[in-house]
């Protein structure tokens, strides 16, 4: 029962991230929009790795590509690498204070930006604008909120039957 609730939260978080990815934002905010899907996947790799492995990350990435990818396989590739890195350093990252975690998330997303650029070069797609390089910062900025929010949602879900 609890596990199914958790699954629901997980699926809805992923779905929400996918939708957010598609949401149009007005020009000053649009290019700064972080990669929500990557953030949610990050959270789950850190907190609930049983939900997410490389295979699932790959599938989620493919779904995201089908939705809004520049190239089919691009986000799958990026998610895989991100998941792998996080799984590697998960044990350390989990015990970092939130601000350190946040700065590492920024670095991780910067790495992801470079990967995305590489994929784009591979696919001969035009380079993204300057704002693209600021998305790690917005991701880092939003990370604590997302972290706390998802934590709360999961716990609330878990506690709800008891209350």
């Amino acid at each position, binding site marked *: 029962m609890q596990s199914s609730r958790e699954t629901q939260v997980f699926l809805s978080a992923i779905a929400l991230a996918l939708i957010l990815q598609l949401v149009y934002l007005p020009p000053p905010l649009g290019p700064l929009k972080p990669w929500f899907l990557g953030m949610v996947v990050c959270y789950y790799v850190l907190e609930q790795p049983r939900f997410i492995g*490389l295979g699932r*990350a790959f599938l989620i990435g493919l779904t995201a590509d089908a*939705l809004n990818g520049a190239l*089919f*396989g*691009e986000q*799958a590739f990026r998610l895989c690498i991100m998941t792998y890195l996080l799984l590697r350093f998960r044990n350390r990252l989990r015990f970092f204070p939130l601000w350190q975690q946040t700065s590492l998330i920024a670095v991780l997303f910067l790495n992801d930006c470079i990967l995305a650029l590489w994929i784009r070069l*591979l696919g001969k797609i035009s380079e993204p604008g300057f704002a693209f390089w600021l998305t790690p910062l917005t991701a880092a900025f939003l990370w604590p909120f997302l972290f706390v929010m998802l934590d709360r949602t999961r716990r609330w879900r878990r506690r709800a039957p008891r209350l």
Partner: protein
Amino acid sequence: MSERAEFFNKNADSTLALLIYCAIAVALVVVDRRLNYLAQTRQAAIAWVLPIWQLSEVPARLARSAEGYFTDRSNLLATNERLRTEYLLQQQELFQLRSQGQSLVRMARLVTAIETQPTLAGGQFARVMALDFSTNQHRLVINQGVSSGLAINSIAIDEGGLVGQVESLGTDAASLILISDPQHRIPAQVYAGGERFYVSGMGNMRTLVIEKLALNAAIKLGDMIQTSGLGGVFPEGIPIGLVVKLDKMTGEGLLRVEVSPAANLTSLREVYLLPPTPAVGPIAPGRKPLENKPSAK
């Protein structure tokens, strides 16, 4: 030890998996880019996720419509302002055109009158430059003066009838005293019967007055009043106006007649100026027109 080995093993596994997945992903990217094989797959996927797209469009659409509402509102206000200004300008133009048209019509009438009446020949046109329509004096300034051959007492008419006479002269301007000026008098007569009298101004551009007429004077409502030509200055037969009111002055046995001027005094734009005529015939009783005009002032 075994734990450690397992850990490394797991790591190795995941690295292998990563490599495989990455290879697949890169292959997908390259295939997608170069061969475009996956376009259909992607389209199918897109068709499948279309509801999500639409759902994700909702806040965007809301934001856009809100944005549209606000920009539209400000745009509308700006447009409204612009259109209003344009409307006013065009209205003004229209009025100008209309008044030009009217003055053209009037000019045409005047020209016809001048051409058909030999007594009106030899005059000249002048534009009205300035007006002074206080209750005590009705003057207007025209753009012709001595340089164009005007003389004191030149007669000004418009397409309807008598307007006034030149009172003072400049080189290129002249001041006219209007027939509606309270100090102005014209020797006049009834067109039909020939009854003679003076028509005076009373400081009202729409009304002239004939004071102290005998009760049995041959004058009735609707009679045409014109200049008599007596006493000089005004040639005979220039229309002054129509009788619009006959008042019996109580206790005096006299008639007071109000005349509506034939000339369009309220909206003069140009006048036709005639040289003053020398006196013909006997001088009318009372003061002479020359003295009637406020030359003493």
